[in-house]
């Protein structure tokens, strides 16, 4: 499974939800499918995308928050699973595209290539709904299931170590933040 194809499968379902991505390939690929005001690309501070997602999910409990993360990033902040499990926000889905490498900086293998299992770490951290798949049809079904589950959830998607040809995005970092913040502010909650 390629990450870009997996993103394409779920792209329509990202509408009206709050999307936080990790830096690098996942941000560039989601952007290449078409930027929306409800997408925030965290272009640095590796590891913190899920913490931003948790802060957002706790602040806006009636809006679905989806974090699109990577294995290298999650390995830098494994405590995030424990913190998410402790508060268990039902509106938070943490998707991890695991390509077993730090692709954006040259493809160095991460520890998931030598046996570390992020789904099992999530489960052992207390996240009851954690899944892993290598199959794109399965990924699409699990994604739909996860975003409708009444607990925080983790979905590890094992993908090929292939990224976009270019990482450039015509969107300033602060511009992205202001636009995203305005979008959230404009949502009319029940």
């Amino acid at each position, binding site marked *: 499974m390629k990450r870009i194809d997996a993103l394409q499968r779920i792209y329509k379902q990202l509408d009206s939800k709050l999307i936080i991505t990790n830096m690098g390939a996942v941000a560039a690929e989601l952007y290449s499918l078409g930027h929306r005001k409800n997408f925030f690309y965290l272009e640095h501070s590796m590891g913190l995308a899920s*913490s931003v997602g*948790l802060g957002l999910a706790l602040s806006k409990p009636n809006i679905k928050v989806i974090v699109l993360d990577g294995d290298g990033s999650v390995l830098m902040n494994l405590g*995030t699973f424990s913190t998410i499990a402790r508060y268990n926000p039902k509106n938070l889905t943490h998707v991890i595209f695991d390509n077993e490498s730090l692709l954006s900086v040259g493809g160095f293998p991460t520890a998931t290539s030598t046996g570390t299992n992020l789904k099992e770490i999530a489960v052992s951290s207390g996240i009851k709904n954690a899944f892993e798949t290598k199959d794109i049809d399965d990924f699409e079904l699990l994604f739909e299931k996860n975003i409708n589950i009444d607990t925080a959830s983790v979905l590890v998607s094992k993908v090929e170590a292939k990224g976009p040809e270019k990482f450039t995005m015509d969107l300033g970092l602060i511009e992205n933040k202001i636009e995203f913040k305005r979008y959230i502010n404009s949502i009319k909650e029940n």
Partner: protein
Amino acid sequence: MAVSVKNSELIYKSLKNCGVKIVSALPETWLVHLIRFSEEDPDMQLVRLAKEEEGVGISAGAHFAGLKSAMLMQNHGFLASVNGIVSLAQLYRVPLLMVISYRGEMGETDPWQTEGGLRTESTLKALDIPYDIIDSPESVEKKINKAAVLSESSERPVALLITRDLMVE
């Protein structure tokens, strides 16, 4: 040694008066009452962290949602959070109200706190983070309010160092 309940209450009330709705924290001796007040308050969301840097992410999420937040940590937690502070809060202009227990300053008895204490203010200065030191109950409310105002207006991290004289009886 006892941690001052009265001065902890003063700090907590001041944070509440600033409109803080989310507090992230990692336990530290001097912060024990502040964390307890946050947990017991139905109008406050306490987020207990595994590592302090996560708190920068929590505050960023709260900021995007329009909520005010504060971080409670020891100065060593601040030192452990530097990349998040620089490459999330400063890069994306996220207000951070950091309430930091200032261990390792004059009067410190624990040898292990002393190196971090020595480098806390110089690190804050190197990072261009405005900070103030609170060492008496009279200045708590005013200093916290002013720090909260500056962090919101500048959309940047601002630090308050709470000292032994304030926190320990």
